[in-house]
């Protein structure tokens, strides 16, 4: 019985909010129209015919400003309604549907490592999961698990490479005095190159799947960030943030997913020269190093521009939204003094709850990126170590061609590590800016 009464009260409250939103819209639009007419009239009275164009411009500006304020207020009132509508028995808030889309985009292996609360639509549980993700113990457990898993999975690769190098060295030393030793040496190097490069290329599939997962997760996060920004009254922030994140995603998708592996393959092909230890060995190695350096520098520069764009857009749009909200609140409190005061209190509560949601969702997003990145970085670092170690072994058993190739590939893994970390860092910064962004408060 009591619940029914509460529900009826809630319905009345929603109706009141809707009516209030409509009233504010009408009043502020009328205020905007009144201002523009007033300005135009003043100009006509002063016989300033040349200012007709300026009046039109001003009118447009005022109308746009009024529309923005109307939208902001309408958003707040609608959010208030949604927040109440989504309220559970304990008063907990529910995340928007876009959060479900984001959690569905997370790959299974990452989802298994996330705390269970991260998949709940309940904001409080997501907040708890976010605090767990942010803890040092959790991150170290992820690192140790990833290290253990990668180490055990890469042991056969290490055994293959070591065996390959030892057999090649055996063959080289056995046939060293033979008349056809140079041909045998060529064939053995060719074969060991096939084994080593096949091992290196097979590890690229992991990197490709990492980029795919990362971009899918970020693509699913874009609408969620827009909704949460709009819920906090950051209309400009929602528009600019979504656009900037989408642009960043598109640029990263092009540069990372479509060019990293071809550049790796070009460098690998140049490393082939080092296997046959001719006069071009050093030239090939230097050319590969130059390609890597140019590519890394270009990518780093682009990522820096994107990061700066994300941060500045966030700051500027936040200021614009705050100014718009201040104006809207001023207009509301001036025309409807009593309800305007009530609205101010409601808005404060709403903004803080939406900020909480943003923080939790942003940290979960960062956690998801870290959970994708950490295993890849560890795997690449271990592969780099394995190739360096095998190169050292090849050097000590006088397999110089294999040593050159293994060293070149180990250097390439360092470059891949850098690109993987760089692509993730941009999105981590974007998510951190989103999580730290405040709602539009006057």
């Amino acid at each position, binding site marked *: 019985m009591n619940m029914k009464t509460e529900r009826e009260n809630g319905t009345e409250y929603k109706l009141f909010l809707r009516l209030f939103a409509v009233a504010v819209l009408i009043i502020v639009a009328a205020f905007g129209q009144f201002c523009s007419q007033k300005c135009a009239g003043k100009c006509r009275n002063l016989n300033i015919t040349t200012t007709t164009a300026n009046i039109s411009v001003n009118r447009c500006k005022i109308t746009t400003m009024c529309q923005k304020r109307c939208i902001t207020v309408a958003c707040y009132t609608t959010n208030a309604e949604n927040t109440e509508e989504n309220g559970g028995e304990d008063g907990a808030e529910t995340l928007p549907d876009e959060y479900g889309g984001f959690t569905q985009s997370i790959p299974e292996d990452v989802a298994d490592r996330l705390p269970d609360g991260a998949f709940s639509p309940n904001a409080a549980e997501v907040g708890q999961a976010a605090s767990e993700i942010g803890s040092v113990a959790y991150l170290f457990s992820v690192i140790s698990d990833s290290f253990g898993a990668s180490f055990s999975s890469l042991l056969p690769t290490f055994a*293959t490479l070591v*065996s*390959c190098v030892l057999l090649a060295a055996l063959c080289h030393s056995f046939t060293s005095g*033979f008349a*056809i030793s140079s*041909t*045998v040496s060529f064939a053995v190097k060719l*074969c060991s190159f096939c084994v080593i490069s096949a091992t290196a290329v097979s590890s690229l599939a992991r990197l490709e799947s990492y980029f795919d997962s990362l971009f899918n997760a970020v693509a699913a996060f874009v609408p969620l960030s827009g909704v949460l920004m709009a819920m906090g009254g950051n209309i400009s922030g929602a528009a600019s943030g979504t656009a900037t994140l989408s642009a960043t995603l598109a640029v990263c998708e092009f540069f990372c997913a479509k060019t990293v592996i071809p550049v790796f393959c070009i460098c690998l092909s140049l490393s082939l020269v080092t296997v046959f230890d001719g006069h071009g060995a050093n030239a090939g190695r230097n050319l590969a190093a130059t390609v890597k350096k140019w590519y890394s520098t270009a990518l780093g520069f682009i990522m820096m521009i994107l990061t700066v764009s994300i941060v500045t857009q966030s700051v500027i749009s936040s200021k614009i939204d705050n100014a718009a909200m201040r104006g809207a609140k001023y207009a509301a409190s001036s025309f409807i003094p009593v309800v305007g005061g009530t609205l101010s209190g409601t808005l404060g509560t709403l903004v803080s709850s939406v900020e909480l949601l943003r923080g939790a969702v942003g940290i979960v997003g960062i956690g998801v990126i870290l959970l994708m990145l950490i295993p890849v970085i560890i795997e690449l670092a271990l592969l780099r170590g394995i190739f360096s170690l095998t190169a050292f072994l090849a050097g000590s058993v006088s397999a110089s061609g294999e040593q050159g190739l293994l060293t070149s590939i180990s250097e390439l893994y360092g470059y891949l590590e850098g690109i993987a970390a760089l692509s993730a860092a941009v999105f981590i910064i974007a998510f951190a800016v989103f999580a730290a962004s405040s709602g539009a408060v006057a």
Partner: protein
Amino acid sequence: MGETFFKICGIALVSAMLITALKKFGTEMSTVLKLVAGLVAAAACVASMSPVIEFIREISGIGGGRLGEYSLFLLKVLGVAITVHICATVCRDCGEPSLAGYIEIGGKVEVIILSLPYISEIIGISVGLL
């Protein structure tokens, strides 16, 4: 393993002394003995390689199919190289260095033929990636 090696050394030394002694009586016998001793020593060397071949086969099982292929290729190349070396040495002992040269060319061609799949694989990798 060690016994075979010492047997080979013994056969080689005894054969060398006999050949030196027989050279005083006539070169034909010494040449025949040289060939027989060389072939016996080579056969003993090849026979003594069986533990090495077994070891390579064992290693090939560690890394899966790829290393198995690699070790099989290495065994074939080693086999060709040893055969070419023995045959070319025998030909030189018989006073036929030109034949030895042809055998060596044949051996090189055989090694190149064996490595053709790997050349095409490298080309395939390059085309597939770029």
